[in-house]
């Protein structure tokens, strides 16, 4: 029985058409996943169903829920449907909750607004609902504020709000993208259980094919505002008629081809490094709590090696990066590069720094928008005692840009003229300009779309064929780390809990934490002749 039928939906915002003839169906109790590249119109489809399109947008076509065309309803009628018949969960749990209201009040609000019942009654039901999503009152009183909860817990509150009235349809827009793998697994489980328990239709939006494969009964693949392909999950993966679907799948499953690592000669040595931060005082004269962001970490990175570092958000990866780069001092331990300390005499050692560079996560925030590419990528010249000038400089720029697959002419452009993937290439060009021995990648591909990510990863493999480079590759994405490193370290709460050759660690994890991580990570099915190793 069809619960939701979207038929020929067209949406335009300020006269720009965003969605073209989108058609899809969700049956009661069914999980339908919409997937596709960023900007393909996934969220807009969901918002059109909710009647919450941005200002000055136009929707035509039909959105039929239980026989009623939602597009034809008045705003007041839509208000009574939202929250009661359709619930929605958003991507960013950090901002989706009102920071100044308690979680109890926010969940109860959904109930009160539709059923006009007393506060006490609504709170009782809110309590039950929160307990159902895994926030029992004993541990999570209803009087907590959102900031007192972790991201996963907040997402549970949002879910509780969305399902408080047992809507017929639940729309979840990238509900786990902002969460850690382990948390993601829990939330996905919860959503699936709820859908079957309440007999809800679940329309889930995600760009992660692995998640799709795991969750969905049916898949809708979108491209540029159109539905590219749709069908039951197994069938679709087996057939993949549409070239776009195939490309998407290939990119997700991409595995780069690394050259073999040379014989181990130590390059970077980290010995017993501890970095602590002092927390603000809790009480006026109470002691200041100290957190070990990095605790007694030791490892060696060899010349030409690609070393991975994985761990959940907040486990200390970036802190360790900053210490290695000599941007901050450490409380204990020593870090040397080619035998020289990165931090000496209370300041960072610029002579050593010259031999390292870094590529950051955010391709949009890594560049000063006011400078041209030539100036951006030559910034590390500042580390040289005699920075090259004139033709030498131009040649260095040209070489770096060519190496990362851009044209030397791009040197005169501004950064806003480039796409995310190109920007990340420019970031790599900047890292290469001084011919460093070591490049640190801090989540360098996390913000990129799957297909672009695949290209950048290929570039990395390519580069270490061309140049004598070593990588320290930091990511929370196990799949990426798996594909691009020789050796891997697993970090938890500031400590390295396991390290070893990548294939061994991933194939036969020893530490319990590593096992949990691997178990939680969604997997792509092995179909369609595309070999895949994760």
């Amino acid at each position, binding site marked *: 029985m069809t619960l939701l039928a979207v038929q020929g939906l067209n949406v335009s915002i300020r006269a720009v058409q965003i969605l073209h003839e989108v058609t899809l169906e969700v049956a009661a109790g069914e999980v339908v996943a919409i997937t596709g590249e960023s900007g393909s119109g996934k969220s807009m489809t969901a918002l059109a169903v*909710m009647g*919450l399109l941005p200002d000055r947008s136009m929707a035509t076509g039909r959105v039929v829920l239980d026989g009623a065309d939602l597009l034809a309803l008045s*705003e*007041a009628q839509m*208000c*009574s*449907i*939202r*929250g*009661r018949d*359709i*619930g*929605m969960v*958003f991507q*960013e749990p950090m*901002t*989706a*909750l*009102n*920071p*100044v*209201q308690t979680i109890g009040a926010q969940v109860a*609000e*959904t109930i009160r*607004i*539709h059923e006009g019942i007393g506060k006490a009654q609504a709170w009782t039901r809110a309590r039950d609902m929160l307990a159902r999503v895994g926030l029992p009152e004993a541990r999570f009183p209803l009087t907590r*504020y959102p*900031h*007192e909860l972790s991201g996963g817990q907040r997402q549970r509150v*949002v879910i509780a*709000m*969305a399902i408080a009235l047992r809507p017929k349809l639940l729309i979840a827009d990238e509900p786990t993208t902002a969460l850690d793998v382990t948390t993601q697994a829990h939330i996905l489980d919860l959503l699936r259980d709820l859908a079957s328990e309440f007999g809800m239709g679940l329309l889930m939006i995600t760009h992660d094919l692995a998640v799709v494969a795991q969750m969905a009964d049916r898949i809708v693949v979108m491209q540029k505002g159109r539905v590219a392909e749709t069908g039951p999950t197994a069938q679709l993966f087996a057939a993949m008629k549409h070239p776009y679907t195939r490309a998407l799948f290939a990119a997700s499953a991409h595995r780069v081809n690394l050259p073999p690592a040379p014989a181990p000669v130590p390059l970077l040595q980290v010995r017993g490094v501890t970095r602590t931060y002092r927390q*603000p*005082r*809790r*009480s*006026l004269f109470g002691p200041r709590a100290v957190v070990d962001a990095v605790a007694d970490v030791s490892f060696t990175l060899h010349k030409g090696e690609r070393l991975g570092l994985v761990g959940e958000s907040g486990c200390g990866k970036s802190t360790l990066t900053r210490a290695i780069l000599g941007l901050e001092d450490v409380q204990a331990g020593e870090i040397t590069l080619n035998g020289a300390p990165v931090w000496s005499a209370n300041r960072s050692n610029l002579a050593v720094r010259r031999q390292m560079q870094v590529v950051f996560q955010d391709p949009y925030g890594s560049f000063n928008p006011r400078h041209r590419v030539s100036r951006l990528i030559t910034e590390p010249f500042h580390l040289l005692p005699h920075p090259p000038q004139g033709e030498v400089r131009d040649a260095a720029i040209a070489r770096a840009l060519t190496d990362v697959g851009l044209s030397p002419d791009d040197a005169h452009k501004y950064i806003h003229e480039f796409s995310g993937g190109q920007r990340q290439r420019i970031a790599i060009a900047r890292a290469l300009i001084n011919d460093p021995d070591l490049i640190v990648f801090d989540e360098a591909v996390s913000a990129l779309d799957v297909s672009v990510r695949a290209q950048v990863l290929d570039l990395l493999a390519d580069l270490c064929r061309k140049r004598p480079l070593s990588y320290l590759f930091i990511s929370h994405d196990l799949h990426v780390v798996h594909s691009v490193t020789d050796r891997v370290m697993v970090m938890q709460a500031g400590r390295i809990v396991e390290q070893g050759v990548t294939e061994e660690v991933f194939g036969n994890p020893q530490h319990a934490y590593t096992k949990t991580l691997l178990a939680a990570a969604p997997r792509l099915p092995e179909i369609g002749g595309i070999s895949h190793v994760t």
Partner: protein
Amino acid sequence: MIRYTATRLISLCISLIVASLVIFTVVEVFPGDPAAYMLGVNAQPDTVAALRAELGLDMSRPARYLAWVSGMVQGDFGQSYTYRTPVSQMIMDRIWVSLPLALFALVLTVLIAFPAGIYAASRRGGAGDIGVMGATQLGVAIPNFWFAMILVLIFAIHLRWFSAGGFPGWDKGLWPGIKALILPAVALALPQAAILSRVMRSSLLDMLGEDFIRTARAKGLSRRQALWRHALRNAMIPVLTIIGLQFSFLLAGGIVIEQVFFLPGLGRLIFQAISARDLIVVESVVMLLVFLVIVVNFAVDIAYAAVDPRLRVRR
């Protein structure tokens, strides 16, 4: 919450001490001798010296500073040079004009600004919004003293609805007192209301773009409900900051308005005291104003915490 309050309190005290030093230093270097001023052009030098001794002006500066500060801590602001009455009593008399005026103006400001800001935000881009915003642009640009002049001209001289100024005293009853403060409060409040409405509007619009508003809408709240239940309280933080600043402005900005409406408030007291070189009065009144401002800012800080639970634990 206690920790938050305590740290605020400590920084409040430090501010007060630094402020008292600054004020004392500035006032002490005023050119002009209070005694000579009081005795006028025909005074003889020995008379001036006698008066200086009587006023305690012959003490050393540090001694006078300490005497002033320690007196203030005990609630004794000393004796006015020219009025020969306790400064604290003079301040008490005046503050019952200035403070009610500032509060009255603040209430008016809020009463005008909140509805205007909320209305404009909820009709974003519409004719109502454009109208309100145009009016506030004008309101921001009008000098309040000029506005006061025009108000007097229209309402006191031509229409004779209000008296042109002066203050009958609260002992004459509540209504005559309030009536005397209406025009001054309006003159003070309108430009401030214009500013506050703009802040209110933009703060609300910022909030309306936040994710949690979308969440609220997804729950089934109408636009209006989302605005009232979710956006408003969050939008209060910048608005509170501005209200805090405005209070200090209203308190001191009263100086000019008090002059126009000849109200016996702190502003006029400062003016008189400066021209009479009644240094101790100047010092004490300025200190009091600074104290009030700091206390108001303190209250605003505390109010933030009341509005925003995140501040209760964090700094």
